[in-house]
């Protein structure tokens, strides 16, 4: 939900996290991001990109270190405030969509934030239009194709108009036209964008800054063209 927060939206310092004892998935992560930035998270499979994103939206709270989102420190008591600012697109669309029609699912977020029915309607129409699936409005979510599910999942987040958009592999399963369209959509979104992807060409087109993860930590953080242009660096880290 747009709240007009600006400046530093995300501040992570000294973050470490493990699912199981003695097996740290993330170690000593430091990361700052400001409004308007678009950041790619890249790294080999299983390196911890999804985990880092889930930590940013407060799905796991038993981490060590500090996470601050839009001025709120990450802790159970602040979750409601934090989540008002964030939209998160899951890597797996089946996890995202849970209502029976696309329309209902896209309206779920705005309704929860107490918008009037007209506003909800506007948001739904706009979000579906942005990703180009107005024709699927009344469709059953379980009948959608893989790519259609992805687009619907993205629409469920766009309709909330969050300050921070976090997307895990948004371009997966999309055909070339929808992929190009998504690039345009992402360019239009203001606010902070963080995108995990293996699609380096997609990253090149959507993100100015890239963060490379390996061995549970950030090994490179800089301009996308510098990092993706550095073949040796990418190869050394499994890309």
């Amino acid at each position: 939900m747009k709240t007009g927060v600006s400046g530093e939206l995300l501040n992570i310092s000294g973050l470490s996290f493990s699912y199981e004892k003695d097996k740290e998935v993330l170690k000593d992560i430091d990361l700052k991001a400001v409004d308007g930035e678009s950041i790619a998270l890249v790294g080999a499979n299983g390196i911890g990109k999804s985990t880092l994103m889930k930590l940013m939206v407060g799905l796991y709270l038993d981490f060590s270190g500090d996470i601050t989102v839009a001025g709120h420190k990450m802790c159970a008591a602040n979750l409601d405030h934090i989540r008002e600012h964030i939209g998160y697109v899951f890597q797996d669309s089946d996890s995202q969509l849970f209502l029976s029609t696309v329309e209902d699912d896209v309206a779920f977020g705005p309704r929860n934030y107490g918008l009037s029915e007209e506003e909800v309607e506007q948001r739904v129409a706009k979000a579906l239009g942005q990703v180009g699936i107005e024709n699927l409005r009344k469709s059953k979510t379980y009948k959608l194709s893989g790519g259609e599910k992805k687009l619907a999942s993205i629409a469920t987040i766009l309709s909330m108009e969050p300050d921070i958009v976090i997307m895990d592999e948004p371009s997966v399963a999309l055909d070339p036209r929808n992929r190009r369209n998504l690039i345009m959509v992402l360019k239009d979104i203001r606010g902070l964008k963080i995108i995990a992807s293996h699609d380096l060409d997609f990253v090149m087109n959507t993100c100015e800054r890239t963060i490379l993860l390996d061995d549970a930590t950030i090994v490179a953080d800089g301009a996308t063209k510098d990092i993706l242009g550095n073949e040796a660096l990418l190869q050394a880290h499994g890309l």
Partner: protein
Amino acid sequence: MNSIEKKLLELNKIEDIQQRSHWMNSLHPLGKLLISVIYILCVTSFDKYDIVHLILMSVYIIFTFAIGELSFKEGIYRMRLILPLLIFVGIFNPFLDKNIVLIAGYEVRGGIVSMLTLVVKGVYTVLAVYALIATTPIDDICYALRIIKIPKIIVIVIMLIYRYIDVMSKEADRIFTSYRLRAPGQKGIAYKYWGALVGQWLLRSMDRAQIVYESMTLRGFRGDFIPSKKSVRALDVIYPIVWIAIFMIIRFAVTG
């Protein structure tokens, strides 16, 4: 098609019916909920020998299924679990209850009548519930439950259970489909894999239910469901009033 797929299809089919654009579907859910509840209360409160007047109550069922274009077959199919139970409960009545009662001028043994009454009551109840579910999405029913001040926690539990059944059946479908595709020519599932598969199924369902719940909280779910507000039209008020009046007349006036 395996039986899980069939179950899943059944669930989906009901959702399809719920979404169709029929005037009965677009009636306000509160009215339909009230009709169903009062109908069931009325039906179950009939005297155990009063089968003649109980038959009159079928007017609601026949109307809803005929005009609502619902399939009797589907409704009856849903009774396959409850019917044996009813018969089991009622089967001893003819032996225990040796009273003689007058039905439409004939002398009949009371036990037989009361058994029939019990079965008819059960059938009406199931069909009435089916008619409600088939014309009203779960979210709308829950919305109506909230209007009549059923505690939030109960309504949410109902809603989450519904979601959970969905999650579990989809997960089962995935697991068993992937199994079958890699075990061609096998009928059913090999005995030695049952333990592993069922274990996987429960774990994965729990996992997925957790993720779905997370996905809900990430989009502002705070423990209260906010469905689209339904506007109330004249028909939404008249329709339940007429039905409830009919029930009352059959129950109290005609029965005397």
